């Protein structure tokens, strides 16, 4: 096995372990859910369950096509009966895992509404720890989400030298 193939296999093992651990950690507190990566089943569910409503915000096929780093962390959140309840993707930097995109099921009756951030943070933290990263980063798009990350989840605002703002928390 080549070095590249060995690393890719390691990333996949870490992703699988992180998702499994996150489900185990949160299952006692949340309704039934499961996690997977962005694969054929997730793509099909996205096309037929989400795009049918035309309320979905992001073009997830393009997001996953453009963010194709071998160590990316892709998450598909599933409810009962293979209902696609959320999609997210995180990218690793030297020290952190940044959650770049997150979106919940646009249908109003999603059983995991309001919990998809927590599920994403839990699984992302597990993956960051498995990959040796020490913090999570997010860039919330409005004040309400900023309040949520700051007050509920304990993130801290940072500003880069270029004036770019993001929130971080050690894991």
């Amino acid at each position, binding site marked *: 096995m080549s070095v590249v193939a060995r690393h890719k296999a390691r990333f996949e093992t870490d992703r699988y372990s992180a998702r499994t651990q996150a489900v185990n*950690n949160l299952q006692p507190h949340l309704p039934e859910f499961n996690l997977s990566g962005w694969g054929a089943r997730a793509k099909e569910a996205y096309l037929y369950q989400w795009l049918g409503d035309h309320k979905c915000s992001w*073009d997830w096929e393009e997001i996953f096509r453009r963010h194709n780093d071998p160590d990316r962390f892709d998450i598909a959140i599933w409810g009962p009966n293979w209902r696609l309840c959320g999609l997210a993707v995180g990218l690793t930097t*030297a020290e952190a895992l940044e959650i770049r995109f997150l979106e919940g099921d646009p249908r109003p009756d999603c059983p995991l509404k309001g919990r998809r951030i*927590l599920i994403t943070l*839990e699984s992302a933290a597990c993956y960051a*720890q498995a990959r*040796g990263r020490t913090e999570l980063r997010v860039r919330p798009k409005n004040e309400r*989400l900023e309040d949520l990350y700051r007050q509920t989840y304990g993130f801290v605002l940072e500003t880069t030298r270029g004036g770019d703002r993001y929130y971080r928390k050690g894991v």
Partner: protein
Amino acid sequence: MVELAKKFFGWTAVRLVDKPLPEPEPVNAQARPMTGFFAGLSAEQKKQALDYRGEEAHGDKEFLHA
């Protein structure tokens, strides 16, 4: 002219010396136990997190559907 060049390159050198170094790439970062995120929250934070029902989506506007 020489004096002017000295001043210019001297100023450049000072600016470059002050430039902070980038974060080192942890090529051999050590894996740690997957303790997760939720376990590290306080009881009040856990309650708020589980009670939240608001907006969740965020990401780069470049990828929004037209």
